[in-house]
């Protein structure tokens, strides 16, 4: 029942890039894809905790900068054959403003 939080605008995040939202429960990485979809994941790779916000975004995935695991942005799940998932948050974009629901959907 937590409220949506305004975290910034679409223009604050480069296309195919990410920014970090700092929370008391750890960092959340907010990604923007080439077609301007926005996703939010825990900023921790399920493999060894690498900061996903620092990875390269391609298609609907991000590649972790530490050991090249690929993570699906929409679910936080690792791309096969790797196994694992990271926490995932609901996001919406309203007239260019990004809103984040800081309650974890799934981890």
């Amino acid at each position, binding site marked *: 029942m937590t409220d949506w939080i305004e975290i910034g605008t679409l223009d604050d995040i480069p296309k195919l890039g990410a920014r970090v*939202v700092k929370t008391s429960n750890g960092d959340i990485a907010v990604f923007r894809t080439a077609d301007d979809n926005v996703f939010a994941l825990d900023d921790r790779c399920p493999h060894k905790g690498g900061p996903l916000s620092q990875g*390269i975004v391609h298609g609907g995935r991000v590649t972790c900068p530490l050991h090249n695991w690929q993570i699906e942005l929409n679910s936080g799940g690792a791309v096969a054959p790797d196994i694992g998932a990271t926490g995932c948050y609901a996001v919406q974009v309203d007239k260019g403003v990004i809103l984040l629901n800081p309650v974890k959907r799934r981890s």
Partner: protein
Amino acid sequence: MKEKLVLIGNGMAGVRTLEEVLKLAPEKYDITVFGAEPFGNYNRILLSPLLAKEKKLDDIMLNDLQWYSDNGITLHAGKKIVQIHRGKRFVKADDGTVVQYDRMILATGSNPFILPIPGANLPGVITFRDIHDVNAMLEAAQKYRDAVVIGGGLLGLEAAYGLRNHGMDVTVVHLLDSLMERQLDKPASGLLKRALEEKGLKFALQAQTAEIVGDARVTGVKFKDGREIPADIVVMAVGIRPNIELAKSAGLHCQRGIVINDTTQTFDPRIYAVGECVEHRGNTYGLVAPLFDMAKVCANHLAQLGYARYQGSAISTKLKVTGIDLFSAGDFNGDETTEDIVMQDAGRGVYKKLVIKDNKIKGAVMYGDTMDGSWYFQLLREGTDISAMREQLMFGQAHLGDSGHGGASSVSTMSDKTEICGCNGVCKGDIVKAITTKGLFTLDDVRSHTKASSSCGSCTGLVEQILASTLGGDYSTTPKEKPMCKCTDHTHEAVRKAIKDKHLTSIPQAMQYLEWRTPDGCHSCRPALNYYLISTWPGEAADDPQSRFINERAHANIQKDGTYSVVPRMWGGLTNPKELRAIADVADKFNIPTVKVTGGQRIDLLGVKKEDLPAVWFDLNQAGMVSGHAYGKSLRTVKTCVGSEWCRFGTQDSTGLGVQLERITWGSWMPHKFKMAVSGCPRNCAEATIKDFGVVCVDSGYELHVGGNGGVKIRATDLLCKVTSEAEAIEYGCAFVQLYREEAHYLERTAPWIERIGLGYIKERIVDDVKNRKALHERFMESQKYFQKDPWAERAAEGIEKHEFTPLKQVV
């Protein structure tokens, strides 16, 4: 409506083609498969381990029945096609099933050749081709004692070894005087025979079988010279014949096999053929690697991409007999126009022979130590000029040491617990298990499933060897024309050429022109494209930060905990009290936990928080220091010794030359990291002979060395040439850097680059061709106008890329 694609032959070649088609055009076809055997698709290569009981049937299935239904494929297993009606475009099976087709793939494989001698059809006479044969052999091994295998080739020996493992008394009969004569020369063949005799096999060489004796069942084998030996089963393994009956009856042009062109089409353009049943440019193939090459081409045309061509395959062979390492490729016998390099050590049971013609490897045979088989095969296929490495060639790729593997060279004798990949802790057993249970064929497959060889790559040779010894020679080696990544079929060269010739200046433009398969590439191709663009069109192509690895975006080195390390440049390793004070102050001010001296003669500040980076840089900038690019695919350091200014042995001012080189080349982006060193005398205290570019000063001038590496795999430099002045040393150095920048693949260090293209080529371009050297030097200087800017100052003082270093929002 979808077009109808019918595959006849449910074997490895045909199903591999379907897999490729599904990858390229998953929605295009409605697919039906006919297979004579009542199974899914299994790995025929692993029949020998199945016979040897090293594997079970489940282990060798590649595609189970579930796979067909998951992909919407109709499988008719156990039904044999008896008619192809090309006019009305349908096929008919022996049970009357009729299916229409728009396109067809023929993959009918081959049949074992049966000697036309009396008794050949007696019960107890079998071949070695499918699961049915293996079952027959296993059954016989339970009941009987004496086995005769006719044929001393690859398949015959594997069958013999399998039967021997089940306790049978096995004699191998061979027409010629040496075993595996199509794969081995005489000395290697002799070593093989001795090793197999030690394993309990018996041999009858130069023996021509005249008759198989018996009434209700086989009882013996009689030779032309009248001798007779007892036999309870006889395995005929004298060769295979392409299975062309069906194609012939449909009126398709056949010779030894079904004749196909470079697009794998038969004479009826609606009908393609792949695998052992085909004949291409006069050749037929019986190994898997070429079949997979054909599958790729066939799928490319079925998906209507229409640009791939099959141009034949070079093949290599390995014998799958536990404890015997054997490898051969190409023309290993040679003739009067070739030269041999031979190494033989009977005590160790090692024999190696390379056949050389015009400074290129034409063939190779190895016995006992096959570690370098895949390397020689690569040199063979790529036609690499080996003149510069000829002296060391025989000692193998790792002759200068291969760190981390204790000189291990023979995987077949390794235990399953031997660690192969030291980076990711992957053992031999893990790799073998992944290969067999997951049906892997390529190095890439193994990398993604096990992570072995996916980090530093130094165990790649061992992993390839495990692939080869698990699958036999049939594993798919890295193709000669390797695509850049999974997003494209284009090679690095092709991409570079297009960027240059078509004046492409942005990643979207390049992807569009080159028909990239993914909308915005992947973490592997985007950094490569970005590098190719900015190095080809400096100042014109815009650098794309989102296509750079984080280190080059943040201009610092990411560490395991997400903090960064900062290394300011120290020109030629020189520093002074002011710089050292600034470094100390920064470490205090920002609570930097670790300060370390690097191997490149500078100081590393480790554990810096990302948000602090611009402020740290600002303070360092104030003391006159700039980025050391310790994080980049770029010029790293120029290591020097003190040289003639202080050293009693120094012949030239090595420190001064090192500083000049660094001042000129810093800031340049490269295909990979690039290290230099200048030593003041041949004692070489700056270790210049393991750098990408190294200078060793001597009394009469400067020796210029290239292509060294002190990391993953130690490689001493090659001597490029000697010059007499500092100005020349600098000009040659810059020209070398530029040649590397323009021609190496992205992420290829100078050492493997030089091994790939040969030192001769570099000498030609830089030493012999003065005009070209000067042009390279000039292009480098031009490019430096755009790239020699301190990225730290731009970010610390000018606020460029500010978003990179600040959180989007702080939520309480």
